[in-house]
């Protein structure tokens, strides 16, 4: 077999390949040769072949078949073989494959080799890729080498020990005794490795922390080393642009930080040297700033003197003015870290930080933005917001969402007054409208509805805004909602501060209709608009007919939600016209529920409104029950209906309010479309009628539950208007001797369904089958999936409360297909 091509020759050939395919071709050929050479156990060229594989591996080609060859090379006696073998092992093997364990023995032999370079290779490999098993096996050897007379071996052994501790922290104590001598080492490499080792130990166990602080008196020793470094004259070996051994300095500073953390005595010992480093370090080059940066971090972390802390913050302040963007970046990062603890000190650099908002570098901009938000407080909120709004206006799109929500949060926390707060939010909506998150719309609406005295002002401003621009969806939604609610104020134009703009009814409606018809509008925006137009029907005197027309168009909309609304609203104009003014009254004040959980807040809000006159307590308990029920279903968000018994005939105004803009998205998502049935008879016949027609449809009834004398039967009917809608009439009867009282039924269906539970005919089931409770359920199954249902029954029988849970899975196929 001829000698294989040299490595450099192969690299040249690969580089000469013009196309990817050509390159692949060359590599495949070479791989074939290498494989056959491996098969023949060729020792002379194994090293060369593995080196080639390493190169191919770097290009992204598979090289796993070289793994065993690496092990053979390591076992070879030739240094060249070992060198390439270990290199290959570090690159091609990893601790997830068991093959690497075969190496352990070779490593062990090489750790005791007579040549330092072989020992070095072996230590380096262990420190790079040793697995925990390997570390356990070799920790003893490493510990021995820590005491080696050769500094070349000592430093490598110390770093290998670092790796061992990272992998197997419980081996830590084994290395503890050796650290004392290592920390006294004159060789910078060894000292550096020793400091790294101690840091690693401190990280893993708080006990070693105190051990080094108390028993070993490491702090004074480190302080001395650091002082020597600073004071020592020029030594070309360790010097980096005039600073002696920055790598070692930084490492020592880091260890001091760990030791001084929450320890007064240790902190006291290092105060002087830290001040010395902070004042004496040359700052014209990056390396000096690297040391200063580390010093600042240490000063801020330990219990340092207040003067020193001020010095540290001032250093960062100087960093902010530095020409080097990297230094500005670290300054902002560390100021952000300390803004919680040293708020006032950071506050002093506010104007510099604000200036960083205009930096060209996006990373710096982002940091500056975060920091600005952290710096906003009650006293500077107006000024800061001005800057941030300006920033929001001019920044890249990627910042807008974060910046907008930051402004919302800060404005809510520190707003000096309501008007300012609302102005700020409106400003955000007009400048960054389409970037704000969805939950900001209900938040703002809530805020507006609570600001009673400002309604006229707000509605006028918002109306102005949407006359100019209807593309910013969140803004449009808020504006439309306000116009709907406070349309009368808009027309009356009574607002004392500014000269009101006179608008006519038609102009208002023009805008709303434009939004309703525009293809730019999102679906939910249209829903807002439709409701707003409807609401205006009671607020505008002469436009009823126009509104009626506008609404009726959508009675045939393709979108179910819009259609349903339009039909319902049209019905309001016809059959229920006498109720209309009451129904379309203003929304009651929305109670504040906190902003931190948008989901919670809105759901909670729903429940509250639904409950109407219900005591809050009861509502909450009902909610809790629903949640219990939710837990039981495998779907993450099933739809659940509560019986609506409690709220049937309440103030009628509130019933329709449920349909109102604010809740709409939530209603859709959770499927709770409550409130329609009693009011709007869109094809729902009374239960009795359904029973009669049941036989006609021919869906067999089922017994959903029969236990302890309680029997629940389901009979079904499909809606003629909407074949996806199923009416289930349940009939509960009692065959025992005694009446069952307080009967409550809850039902849950998987997420793909929508379920609505009507109020039952009563809460007492008479004994001996002498009567029954009926209750109607509506199930919307738009995906025609097999129906499943979970029922929770609660009743009192013989004065004992019962609670039963049951699954109903045997629905007749006609009911859902």
């Amino acid at each position, binding site marked *: 077999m001829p000698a294989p091509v040299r490595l450099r020759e192969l690299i040249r050939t690969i580089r000469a390949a013009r196309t990817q395919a050509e390159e692949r071709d060359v590599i495949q050929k070479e791989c074939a040769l290498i494989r056959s050479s491996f098969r023949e156990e060729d020792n002379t060229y194994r090293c060369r072949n593995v080196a080639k594989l390493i190169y191919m591996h770097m290009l992204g080609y598979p090289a796993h078949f070289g793994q065993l060859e690496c092990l053979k090379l390591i076992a070879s006696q030739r240094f060249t073989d070992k060198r390439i073998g270990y290199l290959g092992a570090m690159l091609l093997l990893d601790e997830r494959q068991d093959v690497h364990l075969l190496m352990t023995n070779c490593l062990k032999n090489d750790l005791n080799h007579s040549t330092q370079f072989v020992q070095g290779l072996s230590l380096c490999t262990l420190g790079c890729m040793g697995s925990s098993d390997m570390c356990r096996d070799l920790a003893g050897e490493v510990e021995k080498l820590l005491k080696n007379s050769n500094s070349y071996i000592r430093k490598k052994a110390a770093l290998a020990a670092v790796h061992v501790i990272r992998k197997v922290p419980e081996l830590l104590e084994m290395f503890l005794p050796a650290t004392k001598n290592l920390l006294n080492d004159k060789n910078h490499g060894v000292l550096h490795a020793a400091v790294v080792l101690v840091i690693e130990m401190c990280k893993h166990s708080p006990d070693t922390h105190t051990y080094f602080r108390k028993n070993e008196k490491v702090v004074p020793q480190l302080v001395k080393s650091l002082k020597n470094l600073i004071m020592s004259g020029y030594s070309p070996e360790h010097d980096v642009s005039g600073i002696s051994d920055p790598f070692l300095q930084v490492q020592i500073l880091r260890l001091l930080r760990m030791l001084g953390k929450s320890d007064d005595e240790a902190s006291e010992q290092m105060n002087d040297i830290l001040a010395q480093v902070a004042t004496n370090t040359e700052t014209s080059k990056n390396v000096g700033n690297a040391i200063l940066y580390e010093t600042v971090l240490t000063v801020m972390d330990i219990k340092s003197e207040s003067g020193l802390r001020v010095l540290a913050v001032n250093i960062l302040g100087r960093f902010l003015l530095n020409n080097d963007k990297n230094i500005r*970046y670290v300054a902002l990062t560390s100021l952000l870290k300390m803004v919680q603890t040293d708020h006032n000190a950071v506050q002093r650099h506010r104007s510099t930080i604000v200036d960083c908002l205009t930096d060209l570098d996006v990373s710096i901009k982002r940091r500056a933005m975060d920091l600005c938000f952290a710096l906003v407080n009650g006293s500077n909120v107006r000024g800061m917001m001005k800057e941030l709004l300006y920033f929001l206006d001019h920044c890249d799109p990627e910042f807008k969402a974060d910046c907008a929500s930051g402004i919302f949060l800060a404005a809510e926390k520190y707003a000096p007054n309501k008007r300012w707060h609302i102005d700020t939010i409106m400003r955000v909506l007009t400048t960054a409208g389409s970037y704000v998150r969805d939950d900001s719309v209900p938040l703002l609406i809530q805020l507006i509805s609570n600001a009673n005295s400002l309604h006229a002002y707000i509605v006028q401003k918002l109306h102005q805004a949407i006359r100019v621009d209807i593309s910013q969806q969140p803004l449009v939604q808020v504006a439309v909602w306000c116009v709907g609610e406070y349309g009368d104020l808009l027309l009356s134009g009574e607002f004392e501060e500014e000269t009101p703009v006179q608008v006519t009814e038609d102009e208002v409606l023009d805008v709303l209709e434009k939004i309703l018809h525009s293809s730019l509008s999102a679906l939910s925006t249209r829903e807002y608009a439709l409701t707003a137009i409807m609401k205006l029907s009671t607020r505008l005197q002469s436009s009823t007919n126009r509104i009626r027309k506008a609404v009726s168009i959508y009675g045939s909309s393709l979108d179910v939600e819009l259609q349903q609304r339009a039909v319902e609203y049209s019905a309001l104009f016809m059959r229920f016209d006498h109720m209309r003014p009451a129904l379309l009254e203003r929304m009651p004040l929305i109670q504040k529920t906190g902003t931190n959980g948008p989901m919670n807040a809105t759901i909670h809000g729903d429940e509250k409104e639904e409950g109407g006159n219900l005591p809050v307590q009861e509502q909450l308990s009902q909610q809790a029950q629903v949640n219990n029920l939710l837990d039981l279903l495998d779907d993450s968000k099933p739809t659940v209906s509560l019986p609506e018994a409690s709220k049937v005939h309440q103030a009628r105004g509130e019933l329709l309010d449920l349909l109102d803009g604010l809740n709409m998205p939530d209603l859709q998502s959770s499927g709770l479309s409550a409130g329609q049935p009693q009011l709007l008879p869109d094809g729902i016949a009374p239960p009795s009628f359904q029973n009669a027609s049941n036989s006609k449809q021919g869906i067999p009834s089922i017994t959903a539950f029969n236990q302890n004398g309680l029997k629940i039967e389901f009979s079904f009917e499909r809606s003629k208007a909407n074949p996806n809608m199923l009416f289930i009439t349940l009939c509960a009867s009692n065959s025992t001797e005694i009446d069952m009282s307080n009967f409550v039924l809850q039902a849950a269906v998987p997420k793909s369904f929508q379920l609505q539970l009507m109020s039952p005919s009563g809460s007492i089931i008479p004994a001996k089958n002498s009567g029954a409770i009926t209750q109607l359920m509506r199930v919307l199954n738009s995906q025609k999936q097999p129906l499943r249902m979970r029922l929770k029954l609660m009743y009192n029988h013989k004065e004992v409360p019962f609670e039963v849970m049951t699954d109903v899975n045997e629905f007749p196929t006609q009911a859902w297909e």
Partner: protein
Amino acid sequence: MRFMLLFSRQGKLRLQKWYIAMSEREKKKLGRELMQIVLGRKPKMCSFLEWKDLKVVYKRYASLYFCCAIEDQDNELLTLELIHRYVELLDKYFGSVCELDIIFNFEKAYFILDEFIMGGEIQDTSKKNVLKAIEQADLMQEVRSVVERGFIYLPHMRRHSENIFANIISAGTAIFWRRRSKSKVRWATRALDDLKEFPPGPPLPSPRPAILCPVGRLLQPNLSPARPRVGRGNPT
């Protein structure tokens, strides 16, 4: 440090060193994504980026990007120094290093890195020590080859192999011992070309001025600080 990558302006990986255990596929994916992000950054931007859970420090030298993913508590500014130190070491070793040197002598670049950084931590803060170690190891590799092939056979060396260097140097047979300039390296290596496992790279083409070409020096020689000032006077 978690890993270090060297890649070219064109997105070709030149060197990779992983100090954390990760599967081959993850490494590839991570490397590819990081490369794209770094290459997509504008020169005006700072050298640090936070990406996924990583803190990445990168620096460009001529056509090569040096990119380190560091631990959370690591000093970013110092990492820049670390990268620079590695480039200096390469420069010293190869004699005005360029990308081609690293391509053709990747194993040397790895050896230097392993002598400078171990397990993600700096091993020696002295440039001299690192280079000395590499040179001696190189010499050992070469001498071993020589000895094994019988060109130099000194019977007592077998027993005291660690004394090989001393003996050879004193005998004056190893002129290649001190590598100070590229020409000497070339000379020495040419002499040993047949003996060694790894012959040196190809003769380099004459340097082209383009900054992107792989023969551009990574480290620019220090220019005199005073640059000629452009007159601002109005020519008319």
